[in-house]
């Protein structure tokens, strides 16, 4: 049961929900950049939400199926076609043997997720199927997909296919500012630095990937340029290097670093970071830790309600 990569797209990797417990060895959690859409894609084909699936970035892959399969696509719209017939997002659909599934460019975000019933068959390394690009392991041979790679369908259990009513996930597409809490070195920064961070729109630069998003906009500087002893970096930390242009540390981040961290994107908004494209604009707004945790709880509840309403 094989799937041939006809075109890999811009940057396509096998991911799951991440590799935890190895940060002290320099190994970041990795995992889907937009875990929300990743989970939806898996649930649509009846998989457990952590089954290995494809993360397609900016331009999707073209895949040829040797046998029939059931797949679903979630996340950014990518004008997916099966044998030149348009297929809907957020719905599981059958692919016949010999068919070619072609995904185009993402229109309203950076990443689309392609889940297949029973998951993709890749080795589990350190408890995860995620591709770790820096360490060159995990996923499919520790790298992004290339032309003529051959993927195998896995043996993960499936409980049957589902679909979401159109528009169900529209509220995920928000242009609200990204919510942040104050960061680990918050006392290194004067109130004016926070005012600068929150008062302008930053632009996501081309030098952005799964390890971090480099932004350009108001420069933000600590009170004095003393050196920080290298310390651990949480996911979503906004660190400020010497030039003052913030960097959001992302899923394939370094586990430690030496730049002060002024703020941190809240967990409930990390999936939106995964959908930012180069040249997109972002603004930040501050919330309390308590509000951030409540937002995560609300989001979990919202997803559960959707799943119940759509008979998952």
């Amino acid at each position, binding site marked *: 049961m094989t799937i041939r990569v006809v075109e890999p797209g811009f940057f396509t990797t096998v991911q799951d929900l991440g590799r935890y417990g190895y940060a002290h*060895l320099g190994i970041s959690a990795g995992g889907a950049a937009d875990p929300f859409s990743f989970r939806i894609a898996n649930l649509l084909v009846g998989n457990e939400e952590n089954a290995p699936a494809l993360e397609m970035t900016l331009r999707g892959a073209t895949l040829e199926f040797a046998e029939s399969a059931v797949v679903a696509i979630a996340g950014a719209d990518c004008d997916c076609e099966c044998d030149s017939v348009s297929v809907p997002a957020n719905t599981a659909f059958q692919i016949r043997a010999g068919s070619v599934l072609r995904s185009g460019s993402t229109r309203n975000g950076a990443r689309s997720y392609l889940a297949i019933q029973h998951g993709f068959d890749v080795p589990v*390394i350190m408890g995860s199927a995620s591709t770790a690009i820096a360490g060159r392991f995990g996923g499919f041979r520790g790298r992004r997909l290339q032309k003529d790679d051959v993927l195998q369908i896995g043996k993960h259990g499936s409980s049957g296919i589902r679909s979401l009513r159109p528009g169900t996930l529209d509220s995920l597409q928000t242009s609200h500012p990204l919510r942040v809490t104050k960061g680990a070195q918050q006392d290194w920064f004067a109130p004016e630095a926070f005012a600068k961070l929150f008062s302008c729109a930053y632009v996501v630069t081309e030098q952005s990937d799964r390890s971090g998003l480099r932004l350009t906009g108001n420069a933000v500087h600590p009170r004095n340029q003393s050196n920080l002893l290298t310390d651990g970096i949480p996911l979503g930390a906004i660190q400020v290097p010497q030039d003052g242009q913030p960097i959001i540390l992302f899923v394939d981040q370094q586990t*430690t*670093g030496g730049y002060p961290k002024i703020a941190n994107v809240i967990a409930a908004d990390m999936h939106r970071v995964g959908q930012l494209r180069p040249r997109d604009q972002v603004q930040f707004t501050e919330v309390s830790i308590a509000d951030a945790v409540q937002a*995560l709880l609300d989001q979990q509840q919202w997803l559960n309600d959707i799943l119940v309403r759509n008979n998952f």
Partner: protein
Amino acid sequence: MDAQPLKITDASDSSLLVVFGDVVSPDLHCRVMAMFRAFLAQHDPRIRNLHPGYASLLIDFDPLRLTHDELAATARELASRDDSEHSTSSRFITIPVCYDSDFAPDLLDVAQHAGISVNEVVRLHSSSDYLVYFLGFSPGFAYLGGLPPILQMPRLATPRTSVPAGSVGIAGIQTGIYPVDSPGGWRLIGRTPLRMFDPEATPPTRLQPGDTMRFFPIDRATFDDLRRSPARQPS
């Protein structure tokens, strides 16, 4: 031990940063390791990742199952224990390094910067015991403390776009080994034939936080021999 007060900060909605001090010192490192090992030993499923730093420990956790206050209380409790069980590492690791010029594009610069001979750089570098403060930057990359001060030299102004796995370098007060091919700005003075990071192995990294290690010089023939026959690499 002159215990400075802990500083505990909410680093994010899912993490807590415990800061033990603001200098690089074996004593502070000892306290970081004691807390790190105590948390590891708890196997608490609500804690997802532990990131030791020079003088701090970042704890990444599931905020829907554990609060910052609960975790901070646990950290304070662990710090107050006289915890000899978790404070020392028994591991002493030796790592062979070939300082041949093929592997050491910056060895001459380091010698000139220090005002000593290349042989003296090699002798000094391979006769110190180093402490593994923590791992970071890339999988298996160990930050080693204990570099003889005369060998200290700032990193390259422009990092190399590619440094081969096994390269041994110097940057400021630190020395280290690149476990995987990666970009990097450290001054390269040698290379080890050992595989420092093997994702299939348990544990996947040859060095662990808290280990003590020492380099020993090998010639090119021994390097090639160890490279050819990984089975003969010490584990």
